[in-house]
């Protein structure tokens, strides 16, 4: 399957948050801490993306620590699937 678009990943991120009664704001500069998006939430999102792509995305902990905003998450997953 071809790479997922940024909008598709955003929709999946929204699903992860909605399952916890949270909302994904429209502003990509929103801090993850502000919306309660944690490291395991990123893992869940990455696994959902992997499930769609049918291939594993490999990333290390330092890469994960550098994400601070909604936009960072979308950028990282975009980079990972194109790596």
């Amino acid at each position, binding site marked *: 399957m071809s790479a997922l678009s940024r909008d598709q990943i955003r929709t999946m991120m929204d699903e992860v948050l909605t399952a916890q009664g949270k909302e994904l704001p429209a502003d990509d500069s929103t801090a993850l801490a502000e919306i*309660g998006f944690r490291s395991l939430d990123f893992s*869940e999102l990455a696994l*959902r993306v992997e499930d769609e792509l049918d291939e594993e995305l490999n990333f290390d902990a330092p890469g994960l620590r550098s994400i601070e905003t909604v936009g960072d998450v979308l950028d990282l997953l975009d980079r990972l699937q194109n790596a």
Partner: protein
Amino acid sequence: MSDFTQTPIPAASCVLISGGSRGLGLSLVEDALKQGAKVATFARTVTPELEKLAADRPGEVFVGSVDITDAKAQTAFIKAAAAELGPIDALVNNAAIGQDSMLLHTSPERIGQIIETNLTATLVLTRAFLRHAMAKAGRGRVVFVTSVCGQRGYAGLSAYSATKGGLDAAMRTLAREMHGRFLVNSVAPGFFASEMSSVLGTEQLSTITRRTPSGRLVEPENIAPVVRSLLFEDTNLNGQSLTIDGGGSI
């Protein structure tokens, strides 16, 4: 605002049980079904008992012939089971092989085989399950069937004990790693009359029985209720190894 970390992890709805073809594994399969859960289970050899369960309860039981050391087969099984039953949100790591030899006389190949089956393959299966459950359900429960051997010394079981102690250690780490998403615990049975405990011999089993405060060896029926509570009850138990041995190890 609700948060995964602030609400109880739901009871299991679909449980993957490794090594469910007979003995304790089969008891755990039957017990999970009694609780209303769907069950996916595999073993190297699918027994007539499992075949009958699958035939009698289509859409509720999914069985397959899988060697737990085959990582690709594990993943394929999870995918096929989920396609039939829906998302799997709980795992019972039951499959294991035993040992009946002093380390002095156990070949390096046999040691490797025991570690590969009981420890490496179990962790690989747990990884595959967690990847599936995180993507499909987001939350869930994991139970490792370890052994009192991982805590106490019994002659002839050194490699086996190493794997069970290793699983208990991994269990505690996973409970923390999967923070708020998964309850991860172990049950550590004492010796019960099974093919695995038969390696101890009549004399050693008799000694263990005599030294057990409850005066009897453990039965699979004693393990099932504890696993049941870890899978279905809101106990908030997490990162614990529960020894079920009639007090034999105290």
